[in-house]
């Protein structure tokens, strides 16, 4: 958007955009994938439809982020123009003309947890132990 620039004006194109990658890998909390529903109405009678989050993500992996950003913004006339400045890509592939202008990175808020089988064996063996088996326990 370019709010930090002195030349900023809503009708002015400052050239600032946000590029979001790997939107296919987003994580939702708990049972949100099957509990969250997205509402759409065609405008005709009986045209209401509710799509679950996992169904929507199957159809378009960029849609959940797009809707989340759209909902978080103020519902004024500027909203649709500001949304034009958000590029969402499902994978890591970004077109070159977008990528060459990237100047900074916004870090993710929630770090990706490490899987147990990705931790090296040595670290697992040297990790402090909390639970100890009772004397008569047969290892399984």
């Amino acid at each position, binding site marked *: 958007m370019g709010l930090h620039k002195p030349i900023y004006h809503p009708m002015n194109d400052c050239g600032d955009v946000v590029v979001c990658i790997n939107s296919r*890998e*987003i*994580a*939702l*909390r*708990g049972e*949100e*994938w*099957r509990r969250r529903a997205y509402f759409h109405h065609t405008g005709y009678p009986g045209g209401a439809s509710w799509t*679950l*989050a*996992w169904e929507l*993500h199957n159809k378009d992996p960029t849609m959940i982020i797009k809707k989340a950003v759209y909902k978080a913004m103020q519902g004024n006339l500027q909203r649709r123009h500001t949304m034009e400045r958000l590029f969402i890509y499902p994978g890591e592939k970004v077109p070159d003309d977008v990528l060459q202008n990237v100047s900074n990175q916004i870090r993710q808020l*929630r770090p990706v*947890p*490490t*899987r*147990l*089988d990705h*931790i090296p064996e040595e*670290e*697992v*063996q*040297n*990790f*402090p*132990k*909390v*639970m*100890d*088996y*009772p*004397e*008569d*326990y*047969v*290892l*399984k």
Partner: protein
Amino acid sequence: MASIIRRGVSFMKNSYISSSARTIVTTKQLNIKELREQKDGSKLVIEGVTLPSLRAQLLVRAQNTNPSLVPSEGNIEKKPCYMCALGLDVKHTDVLILSQFVRSDGCMLPRRITKLCRRQQKKIGTMVTMAQKAGLMINLTPGNCKKDPKKRRDYKKFNTYFDEKTIFMKRIPDQSDKFKR
């Protein structure tokens, strides 16, 4: 005479039946950590071997690290379990801790083996389930489980994370509160 004989027979029968039905074992308690099978020609030797617990020197206990935190043995009722005493903030992503409470097939160990208090057992059991659902302990899962979340179906195949606050959502009110003015 006949009655005496009958009584004698019944006494014999009782003693015989009771001796066969009762199986009182008077051996010592088995301290077995591992069962070993050895095949020596046509002979099969199965022996139970008491082994030192794995990585025993890395065991962490609150009384060893900070003895002032642990209350004295006078009030046994308020003595916390080892997990409460440590006071760790365990999340469902801490798989290195959670994997210690789990069998090799991914099942949570029962409370008589983990020796936790009820609250901690519930908390850690739920966090193990969370880690399994999020696909963080793929190598410690049941055989019928689709291990990698990407191989699962529908809503299960996408990434999920969990909030530990949801474990104790139902607050059980203290009964003594009812009579407070």
